[in-house]
């Protein structure tokens, strides 16, 4: 076993290269002046600057949370640069003018910035975000034809200020928590997406996040609004270079689904996880929340978390509209010295709201995974229904898995169920496979894949392929 674990810990992180981009970077440190500088660079309206400053003031009063089941050295918030952007050669008139180096970087990551169909019949529009800013958004024209707005956050602030002002902070306020307040104060870019009434978005929308610069934090913000009867499927992917210092990624994602709207949000998170000794890697401290504002709306989160030194997030849904539906599907893999404390929050407020949570965690090496979740049924939520299932798979004697669900029910008509199990891979299952001539490693990969299958099938096809591949790469040689 130990040799296999060693092999595993030496696995390669293939996205670990860094690109030499000419970068506009502000000096380290955080103050009101830095926020004014960022806001000024982005030519933001006064209301947004005020909103940022309010967030900053609240942030300075907040204490960094300590209840989480992940451990890290204190972060020096004055030692981070809060703005880094690849210097544009000039303003872009079309996608063809994207800096060739940026384009080459994305090609290397396997993300094409050309407007082409990536898999037969599947079209994906991509918003590419490097460090703090969006560098390119594809298929904008085709989306505009049906009224879908898909652009970088900065662009939305300039061109759709009223929409941004209406919805920004409506789900995750600028003082929601320590990291959300920090994000609100310093966020630099992200994606904005608006699906008008009755429109089914004609293609998958996707944001690809890339941290490139060193000593920076990435603070992006995503806002998706689906008007009445609209629907959209949204994908998010992330990678970062190998650096021996930890980098902070504190993002905020807000989703708003109005009456009968449907938002599906999928994440394949593959930030640099740090090396075999737990050196370096990304701290992924993210606040993600959806609001089912209208009746019969639906928000579905799917996440595959294989990267980051520390993953700490609870994508949640506020089920306000009657009959609204919240879903959460998650696979979290921790290997080497990775840590994850992740799960979901389902807040039932409206009548006949339903939610389901399916969480699979795999811990290998010294990996520590925690499921933490909250299911809250308010006294107004007549007929609320939740089912939660959390399964943990342990591989290696130094790995660990914890499950901390919180169930709070205030209405007698609620039906809430939680079940969890933790075990290692069954010897009998392995034996069965080996007896049929399947090598142990392949058998293990097969069993792990089967363990995660229910979640993978929720992913859009292209992501499902990537997720399976990621998992098998991550598990290479890990088992014996």
């Amino acid at each position, binding site marked *: 076993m130990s040799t296999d674990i060693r092999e595993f810990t030496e696995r390669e992180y293939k996205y670990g290269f860094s690109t030499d981009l000419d970068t506009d970077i502000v000096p380290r440190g955080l103050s009101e002046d830095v926020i004014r500088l960022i806001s000024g660079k982005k030519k933001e309206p006064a209301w947004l600057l005020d909103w940022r400053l309010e967030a900053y003031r609240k942030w300075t009063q907040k204490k960094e949370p300590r209840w989480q089941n992940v451990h890290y050295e204190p972060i020096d918030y004055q030692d981070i640069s809060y703005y880094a952007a690849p210097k544009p050669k000039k303003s872009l008139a079309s996608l063809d003018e994207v800096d060739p180096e940026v384009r080459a970087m994305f090609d290397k990551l396997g993300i094409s910035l050309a407007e082409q169909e990536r898999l037969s019949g599947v079209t994906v529009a991509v918003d590419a975000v490097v460090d703090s800013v969006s560098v390119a958004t594809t298929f904008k024209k085709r989306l505009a034809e049906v009224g879908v707005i898909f652009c970088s956050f900065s662009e939305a602030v300039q061109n759709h200020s009223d929409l941004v002002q209406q919805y920004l902070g409506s789900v995750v306020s600028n003082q929601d928590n320590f990291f959300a307040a920090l994000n609100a104060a310093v966020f630099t870019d992200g994606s904005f997406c608006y699906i008008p009434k009755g429109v089914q978005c004609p293609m998958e929308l996707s944001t690809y996040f890339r941290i490139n610069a060193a000593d920076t934090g990435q603070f992006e913000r995503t806002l998706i609004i689906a008007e009445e009867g609209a629907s959209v499927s949204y994908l998010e992917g992330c990678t970062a270079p190998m650096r021996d210092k930890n980098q902070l990624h504190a993002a905020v994602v807000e989703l708003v689904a109005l009456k009968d709207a449907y938002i599906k949000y999928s994440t394949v998170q593959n930030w640099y996880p740090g090396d075999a000794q737990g050196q370096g890697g990304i701290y992924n401290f993210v606040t993600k929340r959806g609001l089912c504002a209208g009746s019969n709306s639906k928000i579905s989160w799917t996440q595959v978390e294989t990267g980051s030194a520390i993953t700490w997030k609870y994508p949640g849904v506020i089920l306000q509209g009657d009959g609204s539906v919240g879903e959460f599907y998650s696979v979290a893999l921790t290997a080497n010295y990775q840590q994850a404390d992740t799960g979901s929050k389902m807040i039932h407020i409206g009548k006949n709201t339903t939610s389901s949570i399916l969480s699979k965690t795999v811990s290998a090496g010294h990996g520590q995974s925690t499921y933490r979740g909250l299911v809250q049924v308010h006294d107004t939520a007549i007929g609320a229904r939740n089912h939660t299932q959390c399964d943990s798979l342990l591989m290696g004697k130094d790995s660990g898995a*914890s499950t901390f669900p919180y169930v*709070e029910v205030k209405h007698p008509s609620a039906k809430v169920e939680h*079940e969890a199990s933790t075990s290692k891979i069954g010897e009998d299952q392995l034996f069965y496979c080996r007896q049929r001539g399947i090598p142990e490693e392949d058998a293990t990969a097969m069993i792990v894949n089967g363990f995660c299958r229910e979640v993978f099938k929720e992913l859009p096809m292209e992501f499902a392929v990537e997720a399976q591949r990621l998992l098998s790469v991550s598990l290479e040689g890990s088992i014996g």
Partner: protein
Amino acid sequence: MSLNPGTGLGQMVVPEPDGQPQWLQKIRRHSIQWVAQHGFPGRDDEDWKYTRIGPLLAIPFEPARASLPTSMSFSDLDSLVGNFGGPRLVFVNGFFNPEWSSLTQIPENLLVMALQTRLHQEEESNGRHLFPPPNNAFTALNSALTEDGAYIEVPANLRVTTPIHLVFIADAEADAPALLANPRSVVIAGANSHISLVESYIGLSPRLSLTNAVTELVLEQGAQVEHYTVQNESEAAIHLGLVEVHQQQDSRFYAHVVSLGSSLARHEVRVALAGEGAETQLQGLYMPRGKQHHSHVTTIDHQSPGCTSRELYKGVLEGRSRAVFKGQVIVRQGADRTDASQTNKNLLLSEGAEIDTRPQLEILADDVKCTHGAAVGQLDEDAVFYLRSRGIPDKEARDMLTYAFVTEMLESLALPALRTLLEHSVARQLSRESTGP
């Protein structure tokens, strides 16, 4: 000496432990320091998250003194707490009451005495588990103030068939101040011994009181202990109980707790599975009504390989009551072949009632089989319909189904006399307030 600045309980003046044996003085002083240093649990304390004790801390409690009960007479005792035919130790406000106790049927070699007698012996019992370090302010308070309780030592290989009954009465005269009682019991079950123990907490006085009870059990190799706790204090009472269990190799511990009374009750069980192959089973039933608050916190710490734990807690909530369950299962590194399962099921019967449940698994070994589950629901309407279609009135049908939900917990009780007593108590509790809004 006062505990720490603040009002009420925090300001309580604790008597200097002068004149007591050296080892005890040391523990008393250390415990008071502990409270002063750590304070009482706040809202950010996970173990007390949904149990607000702020109002309780503002009450100026006074440590109780030895007295005779005034709110009940001796003849009521059998009907209130049952009679199991074995030795019975009665404590009033935390003090041993020899008149009401009967210590006649104690088998030879079995040591049963009031803790007070034990505390005034010069030596600490072979360095055994008297007063382990506190894990919260109330345990520390108990260590600092306790005057009495039961002290039981079961010699190796002794099998005691009739249960030992400990009765704790919270009592106060009509004009008495709010009284604080700190009973503490210690049970040491020697190797391969077998004993069963019933703790009954009752009170009829309408005066506010606080019972802050601690029971320590040590199970030596191969010992088996059955432990029953029935909490049926008056609805003016506050009850805080801790059962701390240390299990050595191949020992078996079976616990049942039933919570019926008190305005605010919190019952905590902490089990350390310290020896290989130990087994523990915890069962709990809580039935808060009206504005009662029942909280149950359990920790099962698998420290050694090959241990088994089973846990089932059930709750029935009515009125505007609130119940809290937190069950933690920890599997330490190296505790391979652990088999743990934990279930919490709740029946919410009326609007305004609230349940907060948190089953938790913390696993640091890989060769384990652990599961937990929690469910919140209501009576099956199909089953209600079935009964009603056969002419059974709605309320009766619902009571029948609720009773059926509860009886699973009573059927497993090995003491017939206790089972009968509880069946009556449970039926009375169910009919105490009408079902539904």
